[in-house]
């Protein structure tokens, strides 16, 4: 099938305003958008810039806005979205070049929620055991790959980059509801900031965007509820 890819380009060395460029390629219906971009870069325009690494939906490098929705380019097939495809960088983070954005503001929010295991008990000689039910409590949020699809689909984050964002809350959720972790109070204090969970207006864009099908808005709601139950 013949596919027309309309790509938003920006080279900050030559122009300050993004512009659109159209490419027409021959592709299999089962090809992914990422295959299309690689084909363009290899055969038509070597200056086209984008990130990709594993290309199998695990590393989270190639998040971009495809036909208006945040997706991983390696998980979207042309047969599912048709032959007219629009590709833009994810929104709300500064564009470095073409489809590459500066992830540092996103990672800064990620680090701010203490996304690591906290437990001051003496280190046991074997594993810290956990029941299946306790493990299942936070299973959904362990699936996050930090691709930023959710945070950059969030209108609250677009409006205010200080908002910690859905991805960071998902990462905090993963530890808050882990029975082995002892940092819950610290994380809830951090997220009770006005720029923490309260900036969430339950718009559900994050849940729609997540390529790992994490119920992001539900996880944020559970963190809000944990804060409420802590007070009453």
């Amino acid at each position: 099938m013949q596919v027309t890819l309309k790509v938003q380009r920006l080279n900050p060395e030559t122009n300050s305003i993004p512009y659109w460029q159209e490419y027409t390629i021959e592709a299999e219906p089962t090809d992914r958008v990422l295959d299309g971009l690689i084909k363009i870069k290899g055969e038509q325009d070597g200056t086209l810039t984008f990130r990709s690494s594993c290309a199998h939906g695990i590393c989270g490098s190639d998040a971009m806005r495809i036909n208006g929705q945040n997706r991983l380019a390696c998980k979207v097939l042309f047969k599912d979205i048709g032959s007219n495809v629009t590709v833009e960088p994810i929104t709300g983070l500064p564009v470095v070049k073409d489809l590459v954005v500066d992830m540092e503001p996103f990672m800064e929010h990620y680090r701010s929620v203490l996304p690591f295991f906290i437990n001051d008990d003496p280190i046991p000689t074997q594993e810290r055991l956990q029941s299946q039910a306790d493990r299942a409590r936070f299973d959904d949020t362990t699936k996050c790959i930090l691709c930023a699809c959710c945070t950059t689909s969030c209108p609250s984050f677009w409006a205010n980059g200080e908002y910690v964002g859905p991805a960071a809350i998902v990462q905090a959720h993963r530890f808050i509801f882990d029975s082995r972790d002892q940092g819950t109070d610290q994380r809830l204090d951090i997220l009770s900031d006005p720029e923490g969970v309260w900036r969430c207006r339950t718009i559900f864009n994050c849940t729609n965007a997540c390529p790992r099908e994490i119920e992001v808005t539900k996880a944020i709601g559970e963190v809000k509820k944990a804060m409420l139950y802590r007070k009453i």
Partner: protein
Amino acid sequence: MAINTKYARTPRPGGGSFELFSWFFMRISGLLLALMVSAHLIWMHYVIGLSNINFDVIAGRWTGPNGTFWRTYDLFLLLLGMTHGMNGVRFVVEDYIHSPGWRVFIKTLVGLILFIMVVMGAYVIFTF
């Protein structure tokens, strides 16, 4: 605690649990408003009937035997509606206005409008 908090976000001073309270209030007031407004709508449109609504009906309701009930009902509608609505406006201001000066100015304005509307409404309800 032996953790590196170099990257930790420090909670804003004075933030306290106001946002938590505000969030919880929106849930409760929203639920109450949904029930009370629906009941009010059904009462006005179907029980009284759209063509029968006039000044005397409302005046009679407030001064009649169920006057205290209706005044309380209307007072709660006023209080819940205004606080819920104006808190929603505050959310929009917090989201979209980044300049601290403008933020304070518009939030003060929103608070002032809330105060004036509630006082005016309550004045009518209590002194009618």
